[in-house]
């Protein structure tokens, strides 16, 4: 890469950072420091604003960089990811969004704890929320690192590490100073930037092939060296049955995980009513669906125009396919157009990472302060101090995410996100659905459902080829691999549901009919909603 790319990209990126820091300062100029304001921005966003912010939260670096890279390298098997990412929103829309908005205040644990013995349930749900958030954060950090490695030419270790640290520091600033209001506006700005950037690139790809999608697919298949197999499933997840089960596992995790992601759930609290929450989801399904259709074009475009060897050469996992595509579409490495387009796309990808990271950090700091800290301290403290705890928690989570991000830097971003989704689907979704829909659900059932999904999911990842026993593992030199699949969802999601059921039927305490009535009435009517 030439110096021009770097300068321009860094300039654009600094502009984005400046704008977002400006937003942060502006929205926090007369804040009151209330929990309502910090966690949910006063619940005053409109459905359209929230819809953009939700899609900003969801269209992460994993989709923009990771999925397009997977499509560029493996063709149709990458496309299977985006279908899962999108269909997941139907679960959110049908079963979760409105009911959660009506029942809860700030976090997932609010919904569950309303029916149960509060303390153990809150600690369990808080723990799993933080775990999911940290896994998701690591994926974003890895995305930031590989982007910079490309931008600054080759494999400058130091630059890569400093980027991860820099992104971590910025996210802590956004979250702890600006709270939900700043985070939401950053998401909206980023969603608009990302969508516009994708539209421009998609149009350029289609123009290159004279609007002929058929021609685009054909060239991609030809260039890939796999022929027609590139356009059918099986390149990555075909072969032996382990790989196939791995994909089914991933598919389940993707479609069930979204409804358990803490940073998505917390977005529903930023609008005034359940109806507004529903309409935000409808907006975001429209935006996300459109975006994913474009990533398919971009992925095949990268395969056809850049070619899989070049993509793999720049980053083995394919994370840099889109920036390379932009470079080519603009006119090549030494043209002005290529330089500008590359810089713009790189800056958008950075913005994406920063915004998503801020959203997740906010949600997990809310879990730490509102669920864990509030349950573990001895006396009731003032709400003000809970917000102070949340601000501090943001720093702690930042440090953990930076450390793990430096460790996991060679894994594909989309794959890492798949792991986060699997843990969310195993630990958060069963307890959420049971408490919304099951009359006899008890405290013990709730606690078991969380740990019964969380512990197996994490253990299976630890024993999987991701961590040890294969050349691509985190620790290739040791071998304690006992579980063949990379994604634990296929086993751990049913275990989460099973544990919740088992805990409920074995518990001595009878279910609280009155509290179930309250949850059910509130969830469907919005009575008593804050």
């Amino acid at each position: 890469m030439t110096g021009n790319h770097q300068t321009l990209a860094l300039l654009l990126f600094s502009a984005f950072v400046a704008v977002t820091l400006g937003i942060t300062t502006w929205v926090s100029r007369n804040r009151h420091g209330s929990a309502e304001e910090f966690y949910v921005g006063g619940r005053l966003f409109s459905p359209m604003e929230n819809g953009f912010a939700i899609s900003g939260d969801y269209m992460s670096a994993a989709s923009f960089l990771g999925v397009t890279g997977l499509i560029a390298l493996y063709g149709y098997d990458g496309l299977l990811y985006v279908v899962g990412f999108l269909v997941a929103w139907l679960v959110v829309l049908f079963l979760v969004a409105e009911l959660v908005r009506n029942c809860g205040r700030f976090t997932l644990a609010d919904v569950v704890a309303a029916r149960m013995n509060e303390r153990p349930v809150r600690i369990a749900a808080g723990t799993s929320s933080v775990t999911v958030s940290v896994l998701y954060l690591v994926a974003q950090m890895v995305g930031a690192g590989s982007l910079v490695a490309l931008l600054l030419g080759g494999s400058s270790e130091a630059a890569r590490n400093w980027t991860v640290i820099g992104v971590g520091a910025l996210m802590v600033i956004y979250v702890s100073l600006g709270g939900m209001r700043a985070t939401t506006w950053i998401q909206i700005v980023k969603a608009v930037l990302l969508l516009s950037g994708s539209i421009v690139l998609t149009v350029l790809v289609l123009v290159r092939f004279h609007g002929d999608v058929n021609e685009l697919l054909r060239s991609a298949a030809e260039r890939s060296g796999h022929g027609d197999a590139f356009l059918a499933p099986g390149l990555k997840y075909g072969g032996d049955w382990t790989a196939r089960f791995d994909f089914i596992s991933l598919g389940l995790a993707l479609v069930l995980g979204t409804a358990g992601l803490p940073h998505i759930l917390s977005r529903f609290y930023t609008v005034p009513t359940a109806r507004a929450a529903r309409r935000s989801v409808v907006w975001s399904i429209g935006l996300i669906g459109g975006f994913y259709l474009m990533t398919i074009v971009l992925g095949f475009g990268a395969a056809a125009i850049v070619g899989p060897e070049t993509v793999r050469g720049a980053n083995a996992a394919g994370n840099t396919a889109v920036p390379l595509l932009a470079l080519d579409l603009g006119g090549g490495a030494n043209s002005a157009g290529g330089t500008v387009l590359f810089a713009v796309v790189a800056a958008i990808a950075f913005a994406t990472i920063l915004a998503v990271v801020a959203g997740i950090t906010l949600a997990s700091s809310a879990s730490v302060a509102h669920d864990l800290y509030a349950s573990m301290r001895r006396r009731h403290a003032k709400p003000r101090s809970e917000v102070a705890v949340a601000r501090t928690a943001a720093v702690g989570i930042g440090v953990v995410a930076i450390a793990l991000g430096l460790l996991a830097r060679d894994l594909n971003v989309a794959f890492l996100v798949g792991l986060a989704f699997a843990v969310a689907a195993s630990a958060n979704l069963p307890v959420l659905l049971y408490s919304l829909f099951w009359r006899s659900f008890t405290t013990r059932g709730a606690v078991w459902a969380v740990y019964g999904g969380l512990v197996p999911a994490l253990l299976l990842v630890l024993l999987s080829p991701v961590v040890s026993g294969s050349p691509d593992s985190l620790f290739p030199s040791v071998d304690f691999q006992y579980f063949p699949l990379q994604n634990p969802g296929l086993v751990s999601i049913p275990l989460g549901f099973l544990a919740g059921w088992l805990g409920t039927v074995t518990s001595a305490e009878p279910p609280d009919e009155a509290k179930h009535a309250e949850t059910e009435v509130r969830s469907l009517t919005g009575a008593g909603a804050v």
Partner: protein
Amino acid sequence: MEKHDGRDTGEVRFDDPWYDALASGWGELDGTGAPAPAVPSARPEHEGRAGGTADVYLEVQRSAAFQEVRSRYRRFVVPGVAVFFTWYVGYVVTATTAPGFMARPVAGAVNVAMVAGLGQFLSTFLFTWAYARHARLRRDRAALDLRWDTQELTRSVRGGER
């Protein structure tokens, strides 16, 4: 909160293209596209009754009005989830177990797998639209009435206790 409810039902509506569009009557249980008939109020059954707020929720839960809202929700959501989940799992399982079938060409470079993938996108958009429409026409008004009734009851119970 009341203030924002007002804003929500009023002026924001027009800038939301997903909201009022496509009111053609498709996907509607009675096929007319008109808002569903109002369900009976929960209030008269409880007026003058004493007890804690927990009892209020139990009473509302047993009321015909609430049962109607709940069954309208479930009658749409349960089959809906069953259909899209089966369709998605079927798609994923077919893609992994029968790649030969998925690779069968349909037109040009487009094969069965591409059609199925785009079909998932299309069905997601359709389900979203149908759900939003069903909720707006069949549930929203009844749920709002129940919300006020429940809050009135809760308030009067709290007042009585004081």
